[in-house]
């Protein structure tokens, strides 16, 4: 029982991170119809920037404080992601307006390759650390109830907490602010939105900035856990099934999908894994999403597709 709960919590907590990445996907897709494959590369670049600047800045300015270093590094990294967002909109999206979804997908594939190269080219390809003082040691809850207690990794817990906060903040932002409304308008109908004077390009820049921010936060969380390294780029691949399950156009979908996938893959690995030799979680999430698609092609909360002739 205790073990089941542990697995479940473990799943929920990584699920929260998937939700965060997933949110990045959904926002961009809603606003611009782009399925942003480069999300992973953005995580990598953001994390690299964070890791390196938090070391470089103190060297340049000659101070010790880790906190200050982190804050400055975060600011710089965030700024960098915003510039990146702007450039992507300028150099790529703008020229691909009204292209087929798949074309856009391939374009983001290109972007992600470019960012992988650029990131390591500028920041180097060995492993760097991010230290934002996340608690590392485990915490055993309810030792009275379960023998050996109920293991909860404080690190994951904080990570999940941060992710949850950000997700919540974003959800509110897009529900209640003017930009949010504008975004939803754009999501519904580009032409209509434009005709009432909503500047498409600005909205795009904004969502890409937000996606960049998600990437940065996810990058910091993962980075401080695993160390920052090329591999982070692939970590985001694991968040793809999330958006498929949740529906590409639904923010709640991303969140719930994230949690489902998170739990699903952990439980599957722990309980099904041993039967078939283990290591199944990487594809289990995908197959889960795929099977689900067959019955509901637009995902849990996605909008139904009707083709008109």
């Amino acid at each position, binding site marked *: 029982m205790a073990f089941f709960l542990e697995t479940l919590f*473990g799943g929920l907590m990584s699920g929260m991170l998937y939700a965060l990445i997933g949110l990045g996907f959904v926002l961009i897709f809603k606003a611009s119809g782009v399925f942003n494959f480069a999300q992973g590369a953005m995580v990598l670049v953001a994390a690299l920037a964070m890791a390196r600047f938090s070391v470089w800045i103190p060297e340049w300015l000659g101070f010790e404080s880790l906190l200050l270093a982190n804050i400055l590094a975060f600011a710089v990294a965030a700024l960098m992601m915003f510039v990146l967002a702007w450039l992507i909109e300028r150099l790529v999206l703008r020229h691909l307006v009204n292209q087929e979804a798949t074309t856009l997908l391939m374009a983001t594939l290109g972007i992600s390759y470019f960012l992988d190269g650029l990131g390591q080219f500028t920041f180097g390809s060995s492993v760097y650390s991010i230290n934002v003082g996340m608690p590392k040691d485990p915490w055993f809850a309810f030792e009275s109830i379960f023998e050996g207690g109920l293991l909860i990794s404080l690190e994951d817990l904080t990570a999940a907490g941060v992710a949850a906060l950000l997700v919540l903040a974003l959800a509110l932002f897009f529900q209640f602010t003017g930009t949010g409304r504008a975004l939803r308008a754009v999501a519904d109908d580009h032409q209509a939105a434009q005709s009432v004077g909503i500047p498409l390009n600005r909205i795009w820049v904004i969502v890409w900035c937000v996606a960049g921010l998600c990437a940065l936060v996810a990058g910091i969380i993962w980075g401080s856990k695993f160390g920052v390294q090329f591999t982070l780029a692939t970590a985001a691949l694991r968040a793809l099934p999330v958006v498929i399950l949740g529906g590409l156009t639904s923010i709640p979908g991303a969140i719930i999908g994230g949690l489902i996938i998170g739990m699903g893959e952990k439980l599957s690995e722990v309980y099904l894994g041993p039967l078939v030799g283990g290591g199944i979680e990487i594809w289990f999430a995908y197959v889960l999403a795929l099977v689900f698609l067959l019955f509901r092609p637009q995902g849990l909360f996605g909008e139904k597709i009707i083709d008109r002739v």
Partner: protein
Amino acid sequence: MKRAIRNVTAALAVAAGAMAAVPASVVAAEQFVPLLVYRTGSFAPLGIPWADGKLDYLKLVNARDGGVNGVKIVYEECETAYATDRSVECYERLKGQRGGASGFDSQSTGATFAISDKAIIDKIPVETMGYGLSQSVDGTVFEWNFPLLGTYWTAADVMIQDIAKKEGGADKLKGKKIALIYHDSPYGKEPIALLQRRAERDGFQLLQYPVTAPGVEQKSTWLQVRQQRPDYVLLWSAGIMTPTAIREAQAVGFAREKMYSIWWAGSEGDVRDLGQVAKGYNTVTIHNSAATGRVYEDLKKYVYDKNEGSDASGKSTLGTIAHTRGMMISMLQVEAIRTAQEKFGKGKHMTPEQVRWGFENLNLTAARLKELGFDEIMRPVKTSCNNHMGDDWARIAQWDGGAFKVVSDWYQADKSIVDPLVKEMAQRYAKEKNITPRTCG
């Protein structure tokens, strides 16, 4: 039409020439050493210091001794990114250059398989120090492979021996649970065969947990560890998988003292950022912990003081375990060339076949190692036609939060269990490849 053909062919010929760097006429008094490296990709953290080490020693030999008996060593790096097909491309590009490659250190188990196949045909030695195909110790079948100083089987065996010692005797292993958490690839699977034999004999239970590459997602693995509560964990990881494993171990409260990692997961780069978290983490090593020995003084004097070191900063990789191992690989390569020269003519360029002979007749006595400045780093090596490993001793080092300290004396791998396995697998390989084993005179 005719003219057209001629033109096109001509063009092609040019292209071929340009891109193929057609083997230049053998330049006397230089010896080519190809360097396959992975400075990028998931394993870069390990690959970089390793590559630096290999490069540094060659630079040292040229700077200090002006090559091998006056034969200058020329080298070229080729990036494999740990990918087999890239490795093959590198191999094909470099094997023929400058009078022939003196030997390939193929760097990844996958690439070793691919390159070994081709090396037989091209007659080029393959040096896989501390990795590669464990059965390739058998020189009768693997004429061209040299898994010097140790294989994953000897490593696994030594780990078990150390565990047995801690438990107070091999008989105490009975009923123990030992988990193998491995990188899901040929590299990670290599030790399984031996561990199963051991488990049968010593009566411990072997739990296997594959981790899908690149290995950032291990939560469920370690949850199972927490559930199964193994007494020890053997870690066959690489790159980012290692720190992740240690973190997860901490997260589930598994004692780092009870973790044993293969040497590729036992370098400073793997644990430095973890500091105290990794305290007590054990690794098996085929050489002493780094930065000791005269060779490093020389390296500083002849290379780094002239700012010719591969590690620009002189801090990040220089002297790490992986770097030292790189140096050893190059050293053995150079010694193989030297040995060959003693038979086939000092100061001459050696063909790959001649170097192969050198590899097969290495004899680095303690005295010789002292001259080379490796005496504090490694044990004597003596290869033969039958035995291409040369030395199967290893020891355990432990991370004390700041550095790896050697905590055990040398163990020799248990021949009674390794050798039969080598023979068996070698035979099987020979059969698959229909190779007829040669007989050693």
